[in-house]
């Protein structure tokens, strides 16, 4: 479904405690290479298997902050056939990193509407996404708190 065919996820329709559909994603070696060129980071822990094998991680990992590109509000609600209303502004974004994810490993995102509230006339929604690796270990958590435009 194209973006134009999607209904907007407006503030009134958002329910605190609502779980969003699970999403899986894989940072393939090709995606990783483009990502690293985009952020201009040549850390051998991400690129050089021989180097990474000698590290505490025993092999290459993906940058933990790469979870940010898969936990955007648009990505999280796309499986619901929804899109964000225009004018949505990111008020804050927070991340915690708790484990390693590998290139070519399928990762699972589980998300929930942790809170919605109005403050000084603005509408806020806090979305929490926990990311798990194939062993079921949590590799990180993202909290996005956009200001909803409508």
């Amino acid at each position, binding site marked *: 479904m194209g973006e134009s065919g999607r209904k907007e996820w407006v503030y009134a329709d958002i329910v605190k405690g609502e779980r969003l559909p699970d999403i899986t994603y894989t940072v393939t070696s090709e995606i990783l290479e483009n990502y690293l060129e985009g*952020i201009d980071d040549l*850390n051998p822990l991400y690129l050089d298997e021989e180097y990474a094998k000698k590290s*505490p991680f025993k092999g290459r*990992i993906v940058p933990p*902050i*790469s979870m940010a590109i898969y936990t955007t509000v648009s990505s999280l609600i796309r499986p619901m056939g929804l899109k964000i209303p225009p004018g949505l502004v990111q008020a804050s974004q*927070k991340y*915690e990193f708790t484990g390693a994810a590998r290139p070519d490993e399928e990762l699972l995102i589980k998300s929930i509407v942790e809170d919605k509230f109005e403050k000084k006339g603005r509408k806020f929604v806090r979305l929490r996404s926990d990311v798990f690796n194939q062993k079921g270990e949590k590799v990180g958590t993202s909290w996005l708190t956009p200001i909803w435009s409508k």
Partner: protein
Amino acid sequence: MHSIRKFEELNVGDELQPIIKKMTQEKINKYVSTAEDYNPIHVDEEFAKKTPFKGTIAPGYQSMAYISELMAREFGEGWYFGGSLDVRLTRPVKPGDTLVTRARVVEMKVDDDVKRLICEVQITNQNNETVMAGTAGARCE
């Protein structure tokens, strides 16, 4: 390689070595190609010219990665297992911008033998305008 910082060698107020990067349209295109989240404001100059930004801008998440790079360089495993980042985007980043990412230690603590520190982090552009600000925390050996 930069050596991993030890808790004992750091003090509140210490500035960590900054990272300086130049944002380019090519880097934006590479970054955007990794996400399924297509937004013409990042890649379509004709579209972007008609917006209040008057040209393309980088995704906010792209420059956030510079803070992660700095913290990974300084704290290694303590960033990958125990890092935290809390930031606000304050100004758009445009192709051609030179960005300086800084971190300053503002808090150091030991809880249950786990050493942690918090840094104030900031990214500024060539006009010394802040484009991103917040805090980053890491475990420390």
